[in-house]
């Protein structure tokens, strides 16, 4: 059960200041563990600042022995029993007057999803911040291992612009959402821009057509699409590589990206600024979700990267 979105509030005991929020974020990582329900209750009247209506809260013992009290995501508290295993899930907890959104960890009873038995095939995914050289690498890959790899077109609602290669298929937002609702997209994400919400995604039919040709579909992607893809086809179907800019420190890496974006000359300074912000998040993503990557490759010498990737792809194909 998704709880209703909390409303803004001001009462001080449930304070939601940036500093208190920051301290809370430090503990989130620790709460991301499996746990066992030691006890639970349904609070019929949560305190001010929380959504009105019953709130199921558990006392949970985590795997490392620490205990937490957190909401339990369930539509039916009577289905819960003490001793049940629960899994963590990050969700929006509160929004303050200034719009600061506080996230907290809730726990849910794992639903027994049938494990996909058949292995559909590999998808090659390249993830990395913009400017790292994903497109260049993918073009070179098509020439070296082109007989094994084919790029999957990106479905998008954004307006075509000059410099677009044939990598995009442009559709209207209505068409996009229709495909999404019919389950015809393997993964999708929306990126808010100044005046509209832009959708990006990959169609299952495009990916499956490439498999029909006995080739490996290749996608150039970002973190949200990668996560979606991994849950759609299963993580083991994804040959996932993260491309990192060269440099020892985060500052050096970001500076390398900045130079490349400026050299490329496609974006305005404002756009570059936005891309740099995302780049920082992308670099963090590599560290936080390392399980989503088979390898992280530093793009310092394009030939060696292409050689390395080509080798890894051939290895899988032969296996």
């Amino acid at each position, binding site marked *: 059960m998704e709880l209703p979105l909390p409303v803004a509030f001001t009462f001080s005991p449930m304070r939601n200041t940036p500093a208190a929020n920051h*301290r809370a974020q430090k503990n989130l990582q620790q709460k991301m563990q499996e746990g066992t329900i030691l*006890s639970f209750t*349904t609070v019929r009247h949560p305190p001010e600042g929380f959504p009105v209506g019953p709130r199921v809260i558990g006392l949970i013992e985590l795997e490392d022995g620490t205990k937490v009290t957190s909401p339990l995501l369930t539509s039916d508290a009577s289905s819960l029993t003490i001793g049940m295993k629960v899994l963590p899930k990050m969700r929006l907890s509160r929004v303050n007057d200034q719009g600061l959104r506080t996230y907290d960890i809730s726990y849910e009873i794992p639903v027994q999803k049938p494990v996909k038995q058949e292995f559909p095939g590999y998808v090659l995914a390249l993830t990395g911040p913009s400017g790292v050289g994903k497109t260049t690498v993918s073009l070179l890959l098509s020439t070296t291992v082109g007989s094994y790899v084919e790029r999957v077109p990106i479905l998008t609602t954004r307006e075509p612009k000059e410099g677009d290669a044939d990598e995009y298929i442009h559709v209207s937002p209505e068409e996009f959402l229709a495909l999404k609702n019919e389950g015809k997209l393997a993964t999708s994400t929306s990126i808010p821009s100044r005046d509209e919400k832009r959708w990006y995604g990959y169609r299952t039919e495009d990916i499956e057509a490439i498999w029909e040709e006995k080739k490996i579909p290749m996608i150039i992607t970002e973190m949200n699409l990668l996560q979606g893809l991994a849950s759609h086809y299963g993580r083991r179907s994804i040959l996932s590589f993260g491309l990192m800019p060269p440099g020892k420190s985060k500052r050096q890496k970001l500076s390398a990206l900045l130079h490349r974006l400026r050299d490329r000359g496609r974006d305005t300074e404002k756009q570059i600024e936005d891309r740099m912000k995302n780049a920082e998040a992308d670099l963090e993503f590599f560290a936080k979700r390392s399980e989503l990557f088979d390898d992280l490759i530093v793009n310092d010498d394009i030939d060696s990267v292409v050689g390395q990737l080509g080798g890894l792809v051939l290895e899988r194909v032969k296996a």
Partner: protein
Amino acid sequence: MQSPIYLTGTGQTRFGEHWDMSIKDLMEESIDGAIDSADCTALDIDMVVVANMLGEVASDQAHLGAMAASLLPHHPPALRAEAACASGSVALHTACALLESGKAETVLVVGVEKMTDISAGKIAAGLMGAADAEKDAPSGLTFPGIFGLIASRYMHEFNLSREQLNHVSARHHKNAVSNPFAQFRKEIPAESISTSPKVADPLCMLDCSPISDGAAAVILSTKFKSPIKIAASQLATDTLSITDRPTVTSFAATKDAMTAALEEAEIDRSDISHIELHDCFSIAALISLEDMGFANPGEGIALYEKENPMTINQSGGLKACGHPVAATGIKQVIDVSKQMKESKSEYGLAHNFGGAAATCGIHILAYA
């Protein structure tokens, strides 16, 4: 105690909804009662200790020490003690320390809480200040929620049924009928407890102590004698958050304070004839009886299922007498002293805790 501390005066307001009284009015009525019943005069009071939890939250009022002192003609030195619902017993303990040290000979202790001026939602949020604000509160727990977790675990571990738990509040309501200071002087049949609206499963409205206004005051003295002495005054603490404890069905602070109090009074628990215990929620009464050693773990309910020689919460307890939080610990001592005088029994005990027993204060009174 090195030099005996006597309970010379007691006074309290009725507990309940006093819309016509401010925090100061409540204090004044209880202080007047204490001075009137004492052997000393107002001018004999050397120091004042005020117990209060929610002055800032519910009345925009801090600095309650000076407020209480200003009600006395000579404005004696005054201070405030805060330990959530255990504020009352912490204030009593502080007063005992002042008396034992010789810093004062006669101390007025007044506990006051004004809770009905603000909405129930705000009071519920304010009361959560008794838990860990960064560990417990962000989940959306209320205090009934914390005790809902405790009750649910207790029922799981000890196989206590919901019907059995009903006896706790039913007994307290029955006891309150004869207490003129009680908020609810009304008997409620056991079966009505679990059919009252749910608050935090498995706890229902009638398992929870109410929101109350009220004040209670006592005068403790080493100079002015009375038949009632403080035989023991002990405090103990536990982790603030229940998540940092090995168990939630037993409170270490109660156990520690009880052991120390029996030792200080040099008595056995079987010498005690009357107890007032901290039943902020029905389940807390059972856990407290067990932690004080009056019942084995999981068997506290037996003391409610049948009558027994030791009286438990003859005042109606927090449930039926009302729970103006910081006044409770002091009111308990007043009630125990009255019960001892009436039955001419030797020992009585007041058990008061704050939060989920993160602070516990136990006072043993002796009658001679």
